[in-house]
């Protein structure tokens, strides 16, 4: 079963697939340009506000505003 959580709830080291990026069109567009978009695997490097997320080789620091939200399907580690 898929376990879908908002980005903020990911723990350090957890990996998942981005299923939805919500927020103002401008913010969503910018995130996509930087590689953070739906169907991309990400790893939480350091949780918090702001947090650090690994997207492929890149490390992005992120603090979303109230209307922005990233939903992630956690990959179950065996």
């Amino acid at each position: 079963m898929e376990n879908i959580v908002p980005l903020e709830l990911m723990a350090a080291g957890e990996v998942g697939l981005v299923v939805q990026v919500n927020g103002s069109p401008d913010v969503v567009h910018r995130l996509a340009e930087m590689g953070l978009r739906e169907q991309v695997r990400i790893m939480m490097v350091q949780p918090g506000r702001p947090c650090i997320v690994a997207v492929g080789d890149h490390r992005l620091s992120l603090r979303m505003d109230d209307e922005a939200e990233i939903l992630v399907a956690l990959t179950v580690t065996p």
Partner: protein
Amino acid sequence: MPLTVAIIGNPNTGKSTLFNALTGLQARVGNFPGVTVEKKIGRIKGTAEPIDLVDLPGTYSLSPRSLDEMVSVNVLLGRQTDVGKVDAVVCILDASNLERNFYLACQVLDLGLPTVIVLNMFDVATTRGAKIDISALSRKLGVQVVATSAHRKEGLDALKSAIAAAVPNGPGPRPHPFPEAFYAECHQLASKLAELGRSDAPSFLVERALLDVGGYLETEWLAGSDVAERWKTALIEARARLKEAGCRVPAVEAKARYAWAKQTLADVATAPAARAETLSDRVDRVLTHRFAGLLIFAVLMVVVFQAIFSWAQPLMDLCGAGQSAVSGFVASLISPGTLRSLLTDGVVAGVGGVLVFLPQIGMLFLFIALLEDCGYLARAAFLMDKVMSKFGLNGKSFVPLMTSHACAIPGIMATRVIEDRNARLATILVAPLMSCSARLPVYTLFISLFVSDAPLLGLRGARQGLTLFAMYALGIIAAALVAAVLRKTIFHGETPPFVMELPAYKWPSPWIVASRVWDRMMAFVTRAGTLIFAAAIVVWAGSFFPGDHSQEFEKQRFVEQTDVAQADPLKHRAMLEEALAKLNGRIAAQASANELERAEWQQKLAITEGGLAELNAALKPLDDARAEVNHLRASLVEQSFLGHLGHLIEPVVKPLGWDWKIGVGTLLSFPARELVVTNLGIIYGLGQDVDESNQQLWSAIREAKWPDGRPVYGVPVALSIMVFFSLCAQCAATLMTIRRETNSWRWPIVTFSYMTLLAYFAALVTYQVAIRL
């Protein structure tokens, strides 16, 4: 005519290194007119035909959301008149991360220009297991693809010949990533634009207008004309129709371009496996740790500031000495008169006063360039975001505000990294509240005069140090409060989301650091120099005219001639004065000496004093003339335009505990805060070459009296002056920089008004509270 080639790429793909390697550090650096984007153009070395390379800012996409971002697009489309037509474009990609970098490449290919795709850091990518078939990729894209490793200078010759061949080869095919419905809408919009009077719009701009919701092309392109609303409506309707057709704007762009990237890269490139935990991640576990990270950051900042102040000091002293030498040289060439006064009191004092800060500026930018190039600055912004977001700013405001502690001018220039317009303006408006190095002379003068150096908790000078710290803290607290108020009122808006890439750590490149420091220093010299030059002349004229200076000049000529004629007695007197001071010191220090020794000293003392009295009598005409020159100067200042102004404003500054002299001294320091020290010197009837350590100014200030005999100065007045200078906007160069950076007179006027009001009322409260304690 040289060919013009633009170079564009994602941040951290080695674009600067490649640019420097191709052009050999001989770039012309300037600004694109009207915006804050740096224009950097260099001639490529060793090509048959001359080729100019235009460096465009690192970017993830070509979506113009602001005027600044529009510049890159305009350059590429040949619409930027000061660059001219761009013949070809070089798009630089990180070979290890092709998929994400292809998003920008796809947009660049959409421009329809001859293009060269550069896969940089190719050596790193192959070591990590990337497999890229360059010729197959080139066939698929229809443009040349070149692999380089710019830091090792590998692949540069291949790149040069590819650039030279790009123009005759012509543009490659456009990627055409969007569904047909999208292109149909663009076609309709283009005819709509022609209807609205814009028949020349390139298809690229029409596509961008449709894609960028609330972007520059939607809001500003036709702004001011009566068709703006119709254009906006047309865009909104087109987007609604596309949504119906299952093609949501702007989400469709990421979907379409990444799909194109995936399709293009399939079969020709295999990405290296993503690194689970890199060395950078391990370093980051310490440097971005919520406690250890902040602690290291704090220590680093203390070291940087200490270094700026102490290491730059010898160089600054050298600059100051150079300034005095130039002044003296001018004085030796021209006899006292209006021209000499203009040159020495106006130009040399005014312009030199600013150039003195050049070593500090260079030192500061050296640290910033080092921290930036190794990747630490992004971590500092990350750490500070927690604090900044509480005041409606974000982490990217940190670097500009830190820089402002040395000087607000580079600080304001550094706000360019903040995308959110409101957050950027708020940062610009509070940056001048940070206590910059020009406040130091003011703080130093009044603290050393009026704050006791008696020990506090057993530490001598602790009160003085604490007062200085309080002045710096006052600026920071005021900035935080003002930013919070601004973000709730005129720059209303959510605290902007903070998205920033943390580049992998690397060793800083000496060439990039050196060229950045050099560019910044030159920009500072030209910008501040031109304005300060003009302002210094205006202030000089205001305090020089309309008085009759003939008597002053005559006396001055007498003083200078006598100085030469009486050089020996003057030297002798100086020696005796020194000997006397030494003797007095010895007598005071050794009260327990025996009778015989003391008698011997008293005898020596009597001889020295006698000799001195004789010399003083002989030199009396000279001393009197000197005093009279100073007196004439002071009274001429009083009768000058600015002197009248001073009396006019006295009722305003009186509640702060100030007399007209402090008032006008403050007013005269409008071009630069530190001028107030010099101004007070002039006004108190002293010579003009007064600095904050000059004993005469100290005693003149201590002894200054109101007409009724009460002393003017005391701790409350000193505090009120310091508080005023900590918060005021007395710096024309900063205001001019704000104008340049915001491209409007509105923000410098707003900054000046709010800061002056804030400074005035804070000084008022300080004085009124302090006299009641």
